[in-house]
């Protein structure tokens, strides 16, 4: 058994078996991370470049740790301080790096489809670490892994994705994945931040009322308001957003059940999520980060270039 794809460009391209295999393998890596020596020699012969054309803390550290714990050699690329600042094209940069015998590329880029473009032109395995507003597949996988770990299964699970759906690649990957694995998804946020045809295109429910959505769901995945991606004013102020769509302690206390709160980070405290929720025991935000390393180890392990002519 192996994955049906050579790259991880998006959850869209994965089969249900692929997703199950990644989540199962991640379980084994999670156990590895509990050992006295949290490292296995599996990717000793593999070199990986982390190409980050966009800022990142969690994802970059998480990938780097995952690579190191698989014994891979890693090099890091950040756009500031590189020749990309001098105008070198993406393809030229990657071709030059690959000519130094690099086997895998982990890439984050502000342009949607950038990893798909690379996959057509270079022989190395590519892992999408977030491309524009398209997908963030490893985040989708680690969210699913965390939900499954916490609640036992994905099938039939009611998941609310709350906030800035329009600009969120995390939302896209979550929707694709949860749909494939048989969970029910409702997106919630102000109408200006929810794509108009999302119900028809993605088979998710839309609810503009936060209280109703929270009453319905088992898990609330709260997204960050991405101020850097908004060119126009989509809500009047952060304060008003917080009043209408911020997840607050009082809202959660008035539910007749205890839901699980997630957030992909970084949190805008006091905007989409209040501190007393983010730091409560209902929140599994830090477990998400912890699980991220195991999930990324699984992805790297399963894609680590058993392709011909890559020895």
């Amino acid at each position, binding site marked *: *058994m*192996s994955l049906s794809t050579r790259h991880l460009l998006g959850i869209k391209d994965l089969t249900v078996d692929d997703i199950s*295999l990644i989540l*199962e*393998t991640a*379980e*084994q*890596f999670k*156990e*590895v991370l509990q*050992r*006295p*020596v949290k*490292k*296995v*020699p*599996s990717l000793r*012969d593999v070199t990986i470049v982390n190409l980050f054309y966009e800022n990142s803390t969690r994802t970059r550290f998480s990938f780097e740790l995952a690579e190191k714990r698989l014994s891979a050699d890693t090099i890091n690329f950040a756009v500031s301080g590189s020749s990309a600042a001098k105008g070198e094209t993406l393809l030229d940069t990657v071709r030059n790096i690959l000519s130094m015998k690099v086997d895998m590329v982990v890439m984050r880029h502000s342009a949607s489809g950038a990893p798909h473009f690379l996959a057509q032109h270079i022989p190395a395995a590519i892992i999408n670490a977030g491309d524009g507003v398209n997908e963030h597949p490893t985040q989708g996988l680690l969210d699913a892994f965390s939900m499954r770990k916490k609640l036992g299964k994905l099938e039939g699970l009611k998941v609310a994705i709350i906030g800035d759906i329009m600009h969120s690649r995390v939302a896209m990957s979550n929707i694709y994945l949860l749909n494939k694995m048989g969970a029910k998804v409702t997106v919630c946020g102000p109408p200006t931040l929810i794509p108009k045809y999302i119900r028809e295109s993605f088979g998710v429910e839309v609810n503009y009322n936060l209280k109703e959505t929270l009453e319905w769901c088992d898990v609330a995945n709260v997204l960050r308001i991405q101020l850097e991606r908004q060119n126009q004013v989509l809500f009047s102020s952060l304060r008003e957003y917080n009043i209408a769509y911020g997840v607050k302690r009082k809202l959660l206390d008035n539910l007749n059940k205890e839901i699980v709160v997630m957030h992909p980070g970084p949190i805008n405290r006091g905007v989409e999520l209040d501190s007393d929720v983010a730091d409560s025991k209902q929140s599994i935000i830090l477990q998400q980060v912890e699980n991220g390393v195991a999930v990324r180890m699984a992805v790297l*392990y*399963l894609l*680590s270039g*058993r392709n011909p002519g890559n*020895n």
Partner: protein
Amino acid sequence: MKSILTEQQLEITIKRLAHQVLENHVDLTNTVLIGLQPRGVFLSDQLVDEIKKETSTEKIQYGKLDITFYRDDIRKELHIANRTDIPFSIEGKNVVLIDDVLYTGRTIRAALDALLDFGRPEKVELCVLIDRRFSRQLPIHPDYTGKSIDAIVSQKVKVFWKNRDGKDEVCLVND
């Protein structure tokens, strides 16, 4: 398909292996038993059951080890990992590794590497049901052997277990 061990012989062999392990580890407090995933655990489960009949059960420390991430043929083929479950420290312990068939020795080599990531055992022993003599590619030798056999490369040893395959038997298969 030639039978090497029948159901009755298999039962007696496992009993003998259990007694041999106990003979060398009369007090099990400093000994841990570790079955190798995926196939070795069928043997180790039964071996541990036999040992439980002879001694107080709370002394037995039994774990399962998967060696997928330590394999030396990872560049040839992708293997799917199984669960590792070692809920105790192996630091300073006597470890008995348990597997069904010892052939090239490469699995045991990987298991030794994996084991060291859990701590530094005092001593490691190897217990196997079937030892395919003269086929070793590494200097590895079992301490407890169910049965030694001579088989050529094209032949395969198949171990059947009742709770998985519907019968208890060990066979030699010509490919």
